[in-house]
């Protein structure tokens, strides 16, 4: 058995889990990095982040510090990458920060992942996707071990199964919002796009215990060559207007075109930074970060992870500089082989365990979901509603098969991918339906090996999923 690094501890004799600690040696370097700025004008210094991560976090959320390699959410060990620590800080403080935003009168709106959130913030709301909603709810439970936390989460989900159906995958946050753990004011995702379940999950809120308090709205995403249809763009723009009007009813203010135009600029900056970071990351001979940090970093460009686009931007700006430096210096990332098999993940909402993937000699270098929206910039001239609608209807992930495949192949080439995984969850109908189609087309265009893997919904079979990923790595290596 390998020696346990000095920053790994055990919290008590009865607790067999190993816990991660941020090592003191990196403290000085870290506290010299940038502050995080927030939307309400407040900031936290790196020193405050450090203190939180080393003193508050381990007590409040021991589950998050669980150091098992079987834990998909394990904190990244790349402790010299400032982004990584700040990103962890923002995740851990979700509950406090969102409670504060709510107290400041900002409506909390449930949205779906992989969609732009510009109009929600333009109207003064906070947009939370399913994972962020879950992280807010979980943040209220302190002192749990990972097993306890996972049990609680499973029992939360069970509430949605009971109230809706056991085939529910995306319950639109029903188990948190209707149970009152997350005081959302609205459930207002874009429909259809990407997910088969979110519209039905939204509808289910109409019979929940908080049905009268929570406003429901669907921003209707038209399908089939929508990008090329003027009437589809106008329809979606009308839906966006309806959304901001609806949030205005909660805030009592009026969202102007200028508000939206300003917000689009801000979110475009996030999207641009993420694209630049991706180009840098992919251009490097050696992976400049581990797979987990890469994913969080790219994802942040969507400005939807932490409920605060300004905070996301401040992390992205700093990370852009750091990645550039790492690439220039030929940084070697701990745990990642120099010749790791480069994998690209297609499909929705399932990810292999990055750490175990790296242990097996691979690294995940890209994904299509939660990326196609980020790579789509919004034109900043003209009617902002129309331009936003035009951009959203152009998401490559939502285009007819050949176009979606064409864009995916582009990403695969840029990221110098060796193998493609298409993953989907058990209850996911729309993505699973075209899994074979997409991989067949990718194979036809690139000749790269592909594999389709289905994950179970409760994540009780992650070992099986990982085994298949690992054999795939062996095959493509």
């Amino acid at each position, binding site marked *: 058995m390998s020696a346990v690094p000095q920053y790994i501890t055990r919290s008590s004799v009865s607790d067999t889990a190993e816990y991660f600690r941020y090592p003191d040696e990196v403290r000085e370097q870290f506290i010299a990095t940038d502050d995080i700025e927030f939307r309400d004008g407040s900031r936290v210094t790196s020193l405050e982040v450090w203190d939180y991560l080393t003193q508050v976090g381990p007590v409040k959320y021991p589950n998050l510090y669980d150091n098992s390699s079987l834990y998909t959410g394990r904190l990244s060990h790349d402790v010299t990458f400032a982004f990584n620590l700040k990103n962890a800080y923002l995740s851990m403080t979700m509950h406090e920060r969102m409670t504060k935003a709510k107290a400041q009168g900002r409506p909390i709106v449930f949205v779906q992942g992989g969609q732009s959130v510009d109009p929600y913030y333009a109207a003064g709301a906070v947009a939370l996707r399913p994972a962020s909603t879950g992280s807010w709810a979980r943040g209220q439970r302190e002192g749990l071990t990972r097993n306890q936390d996972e049990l609680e989460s499973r029992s939360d989900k069970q509430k949605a199964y009971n109230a809706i159906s056991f085939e529910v995958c995306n319950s639109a946050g029903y188990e948190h919002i209707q149970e009152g753990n997350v005081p959302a004011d609205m459930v207002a995702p874009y429909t259809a796009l990407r997910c088969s379940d979110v519209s039905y999950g939204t509808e289910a809120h109409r019979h929940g215990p908080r049905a009268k308090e929570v406003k429901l709205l669907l921003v209707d995403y038209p*399908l089939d060559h929508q990008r090329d249809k003027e009437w*589809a763009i106008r329809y979606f723009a009308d839906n966006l207007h309806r959304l901001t009007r609806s949030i205005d009813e909660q805030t009592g203010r009026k969202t102007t075109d200028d508000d939206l135009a300003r917000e689009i600029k801000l979110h475009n900056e996030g999207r641009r930074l993420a694209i630049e970071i991706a180009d840098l990351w992919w251009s490097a001979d050696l992976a400049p970060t581990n797979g987990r940090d890469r994913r969080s970093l790219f994802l942040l460009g969507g400005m939807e992870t932490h409920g605060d686009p300004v905070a996301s931007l401040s992390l992205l700006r700093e990370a852009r500089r750091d990645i550039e430096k790492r690439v220039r210096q030929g940084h070697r990332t701990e745990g990642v082989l120099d010749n790791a098999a480069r994998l690209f993940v297609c499909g929705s909402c399932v990810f292999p365990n990055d750490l175990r993937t790296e242990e097996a000699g691979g690294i995940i270098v890209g994904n299509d979901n939660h990326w196609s929206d980020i790579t789509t910039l919004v034109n900043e001239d003209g009617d902002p509603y129309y331009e936003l609608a035009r951009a959203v209807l152009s998401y490559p992930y939502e285009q007819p098969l050949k176009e979606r495949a064409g864009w995916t192949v582009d990403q695969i080439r840029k990221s110098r991918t060796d193998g493609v995984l298409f993953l989907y969850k058990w209850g996911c109908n729309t993505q699973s339906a075209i899994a074979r189609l997409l991989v067949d087309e990718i194979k036809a265009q690139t000749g790269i090996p592909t594999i389709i893997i289905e994950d179970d919904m409760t994540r009780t079979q992650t070992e099986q999923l990982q085994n298949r990923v690992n054999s795939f790595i062996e095959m493509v290596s």
Partner: protein
Amino acid sequence: MALNALELIYKRLRERPQELVEARANGAKVVGFQAYNLPEEVIYALGLIPVRLGSGGDGDLVEVGGRYISTKNCVYVRSTVGLFAENTDPYIVNSDIVAFDATCLQTFRTAEVVQYYFNREVIILGVPRNFYLQEAHTYFAAELRHFVSRLEAISGVTLTRERLADSIALYNGIRDAIVRIYPYQATKNPAISWEQVFDVIQAGYVLDRREYLGLLESLLAELVQQRGAPVIGGEDDEARIFISGSTIPPGDKKLISIMQELGGRIVGDDLWSGLIPYVDVQIEDATLEALASAYLNRTPHGALPYLELATDRRIKRLKELITTFKANGVIYHTLRYCDPYTFKAKETKDILEKEGIPLLELHTEYAGSDFEAIRTRVEAFVEMVKLRAESEEAA
């Protein structure tokens, strides 16, 4: 007493495949379609032959389809993909163009799969999810116009107001006849059973629509002659079952035969393969805008979410139909992975329970493996409904 028109419908169904082959040999074009909100009127108006595609009940077809689309898709769409893969079904073989709509996202995906793997010319009609909004009607009218322009290019015919008006009149006649025939199956000692009416409705998926209207009118005339006006009702202790939920396409006889075997009587449905598409259709004018609005104003399909329970027309219509057909129990049939209806099962059950109407959810697929399990559950349910009916009568 036998119904001659009914016999004739069955006979014409057997003859229809050959007829289509001949029609195509003479230059006619067939539009095969699978959709929930596609105004067939426009296909017919352009001189094209509309044929509704799809069948159920065949586990092998589901297997074959599952090789192209995922096993996490409902068996109906898997089976549809299987039909294209096998390419032996006469309606699939004889479809020159294939059309789908985007009411259900799984149908939308089916269109992509069919286009990619089976090299078919596919047209898709976009359908708005916020169907109750004015802007959704505008969008849908534009989609329909786009759809028609593609059909015009294929048929070489321009859709004029007269052509559309004629077609709308024909389809109004069909809808009206179905709505008038339907109650006869729910009467005491009926001259026609629900199962037969169901067959009659589904015969209209493929028969020539003008001939079909004639057949419906003959059938109605016979029913009127034999029974006069329909008086809905039955024996006092009867289990009168209403069927709701996912589609039951031609060929899917599992639930129907179990019901027949157990002596439970189906007296009504709000299925999209049954009565529901034919009620509430009010086309105000012979224009595509009016047609689009009329389709969106129907009782909504389960795949179109509606966010306010109190004003949901699907629930309202369900309750009305249960009352009209004097049903005393509901079987809510959901196909595995049919999210549009599965997600609503619990809610529908709770609502009907408050009204004192028991509901049994049957979650099934086309494989025969759950036949016994379903039989046992249906048997217990039918028995319970009968007992309730008896005790209500005694009280």
